[in-house]
């Protein structure tokens, strides 16, 4: 007999290791008791949900109703979280502050068309710094 066969034979002897008589009958009782205990420990919402689901066929709730309710709840949550036209958060403002400077880093005189800043969208917006008050601003009554 090869060593491999001898090992297999030895291992087969382990089949004789058995739990005490009556163990499997007790095992079933223990399992049933445990199942009942788990039922008692279940959270209230889980029991309520199970009852609702089991009642559903009796009260003729169409199957799609659940999906519709869930979809509506998700949509409502999305609207609440992402409100259109809601004020931008302070974090976003702080991030944009560097590009929204009202003062030019360097002054230019009229006639020069040098863009001094960018808009928050990144498109160039030309500003001019006038050295003197424009003529049109002068009062027509002053001589």
């Amino acid at each position, binding site marked *: 007999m090869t060593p491999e066969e001898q090992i297999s034979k030895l291992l087969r002897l382990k089949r004789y*290791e058995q739990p005490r008589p009556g163990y499997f009958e007790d095992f079933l009782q223990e399992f049933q008791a*445990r199942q009942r205990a788990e039922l008692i420990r279940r959270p209230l919402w889980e029991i309520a949900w199970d009852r609702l689901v089991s009642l559903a066929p009796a009260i003729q709730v169409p199957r799609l109703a659940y999906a519709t309710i869930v979809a509506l709840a998700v949509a409502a949550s999305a609207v609440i979280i992402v409100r259109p036209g809601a004020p931008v958060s302070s974090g976003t403002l702080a991030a944009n502050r560097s590009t929204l400077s009202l003062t030019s880093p360097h002054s230019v005189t009229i006639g020069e068309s040098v863009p001094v800043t960018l808009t928050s969208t990144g498109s160039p917006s030309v500003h001019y710094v006038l050295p003197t008050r424009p003529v049109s601003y002068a009062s027509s009554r002053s001589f």
Partner: protein
Amino acid sequence: METPETPDEELVARTQAGDARAFDQLVVRFSPRLYGLVYNMTSNHEDTNDLLQDIFAKAYRSIKGFQGKSSFYTWMHSIAVNMAINFLKKRNRRMTMSLDDVDNGIANDPEFIEATSDYDPRHQANLGELQKKLNEAMMKLSDEHRTVVTMFDIQGMPHAEIAKILKISDGTVRSRLFYAHRQLQNYLQEFITT
């Protein structure tokens, strides 16, 4: 009262429909076999008892999802093996052996008589010692190797069934068995005649 001939599929269908008594029948039917599987993987009776409770509880919770793509036997064994391997990973080195009694029938088993008669008489071979040595040797194997040895050598499952349960190829089963047997030969040298 259920007849032993009630097919597993029928009991499964009744359990899925909410009949807890049908599941009790499945527990009665499968617990001895699954006990053997888990016990030989853990070498500890108390751990086996706790694990077996968890295994059936998990099966009961998941049975509505069982679609019958494999046999219920394969499905139950997959749950048992996965849970036992996870348990062994957590238990790590804390293990202590707590062995079941050996059935008296072993004394008349020709394989036992042969194994102990060839044993070195200076060691006063006896049943308890052989049992201890066998279990110690099993526990020296890796979890994966012990699993295939338990399923093939102790439970007598065919390679194909083991491959299905463990979701590995037939070749992998054979290779694991080969290496496991080689290791066991080293650990149990004193019981092997060359």
